[in-house]
């Protein structure tokens, strides 16, 4: 039982990590969701094996499941759910703005990329570079 759950958590973590490293936002979101599920399963297994429902008054104490990890997992699920909703809203906003869900390169990466070809560029392109970094700095 516990081995199966541990294996499931491991698979979810692995898949989630792989999706997290993709460039499409939708995949990143799904990846984070999978990792979230993996952590919740891990939380559940941390209480030990299964047992009776943790209700006061019936049966031997040794048969009862540990209620604390269940409460923790529940809290974690709610939090993950909320943040995931926010992330989806942001992914949608990003699509509205760019009509694409590929994560863009860093400002630094782009500047280095441009500087690499800078030797061959004339002054006009140099001015473009200035403007580009200017506008990205100013429209906040």
């Amino acid at each position, binding site marked *: 039982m516990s081995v199966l759950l541990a294996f499931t958590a491991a698979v979810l973590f692995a898949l989630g990590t792989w999706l997290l490293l993709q460039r499409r936002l939708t995949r990143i979101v799904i990846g984070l969701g999978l990792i979230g599920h993996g*952590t919740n399963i891990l*939380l559940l297994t941390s209480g030990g094996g299964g047992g009776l429902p943790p209700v006061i008054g019936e049966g031997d104490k040794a048969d009862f499941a540990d209620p*604390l990890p269940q409460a923790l997992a529940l809290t*974690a699920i709610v939090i993950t759910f909320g943040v995931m909703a*926010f*992330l989806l809203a*942001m992914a949608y906003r990003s699509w509205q703005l760019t009509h694409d869900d590929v994560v*863009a390169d860093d400002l630094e990466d782009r500047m280095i990329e441009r500087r690499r070809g800078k030797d061959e560029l004339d002054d006009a392109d140099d001015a473009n570079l200035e403007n580009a970094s*200017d506008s990205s700095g*100013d429209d906040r």
Partner: protein
Amino acid sequence: MSSALVPLPIVLPLLAAALTVVFGRFRVAQRITALAALGANVGISIALLVRADDVGVVTMDAGGWAAPLGITYVVDRLSAIMLVTSSLMLLVVLIYAIGQQGVKGIHVGFDPIYLVLAAGVSASFITGDMFNLFVAFEMMLAASYVLLTLGGRSDQIRAGMTYVVISLAASALFITALALLYSATGTVNMADLAERIPQLSDGVRTGFSLLLILVFGIKAGLFPLFFWLPDSYPTAPGPVTAIFAGLLTKVGVYAIIRTQTLLFPPESQQGTALLVIGGLTMVVGVLGALAQDDLKRLLSFHIVGQIGYMIFGLGLFTVAGVSAVVFYIVQTILVKTNLFLVAGLVDRHTGSSRVSVVGGIVRSAPVIAVFFAVPALSLAGLPPSSGFAGKFALLDAGVEAQQWWIVAVALLVSLLTLFSMTKIWAGAFWGEPESGDRAVIAPEGSEPRPSRGGPPLMVAATGITVALSIAYVVFAGPIYGLAERAGTDLMNPSVYIDAVFGSDR
């Protein structure tokens, strides 16, 4: 010692957040509620600090369930110091935000979210339960996601994506760490953990120690996990960047200090690893800053550098080292908030925050120049600034522990920080402005009258932070005494544990 004041810094902002949502249509009422709540928070925090310094540790069991069954809230000297500092900064930055956008101009969602952030920050400092710490972090982070992207412009969304995804990944690691801790020890109460972790085998303990450093290191911006920070912070609106820069990373540092000193016995504390990480963080932070042109990005890299100093102090694991960190962390919060508020003033005054574009602020707005000079000297650590006192305490502790190489690195980084600050000063404050500079375009002919720096509330709020950091060095003696008592408590975890479980055991 128990006190009913303990949960108020969490409850009050949350209550006020609910009220500000109700008052959404009445902007003035919204502002007054938020200001009153954060103002009351400052008072409560100071009362808690006085109380905590009096008796050592103040605790409160939520719902009357005694530890380790219930959630315990604990205010020791470190928590109280952090509470006072954070509540002061939250209040000052709110005043600044009102000054910047006008009483009616602020986004209707700003106040509620800002108050939730305040509650999350307080909760992180107060809680004595690992899972509750996770909830507090999430409360703070969820609020910060919204504040960072409030407005929904494309650069904000892009930066926000990096920030949210990295924070979520860190949170997933945090839950993983909690699940493993619970299965190994059967508790998530910090005081209880502190008693049970020493019974674990050595390898498991080291694993937990490193895992927790990793989790909080992402939030604190340690090398090599800092890359998200200079990308995301500068895109937020001015006041939001100031509060992020001042507080959020320091909450991560607080969590590292708390978990490393309380939970782990001396033999599994990662002293050397933390010293190396601290040194690398300093060097990378300051080198990154030297390469930047945009004022906010430049200062964001300096945040990373400052975090390195704190980790260096903690890595010594001596009373002097930890006391110095406590003293230094407060100083950095004041100075960093101050610098970002000034960056906001510069942006507003000249229309740009690029050092190569703006210039001549010394002549066009002397107030801004003065407000920049004080924290800049502090950041570089020149006497008689508050930064000098902080860095001197750290280096003194390093010399005492005979960690010469890290002392040398810290001195070198200070020198480079000074160089970076002179670069800003020479470029933006002395240098000739370029045509992109709004301040020089306006008047034709005669010498323009020096500006008063911006809207009165913005200038006043920045002035308060300057005054606070000057007061910090004037009263450095008593404050360092307090930091030393906090450091002594931290290096002797039984004080904390006994207070949580009560003296009747």
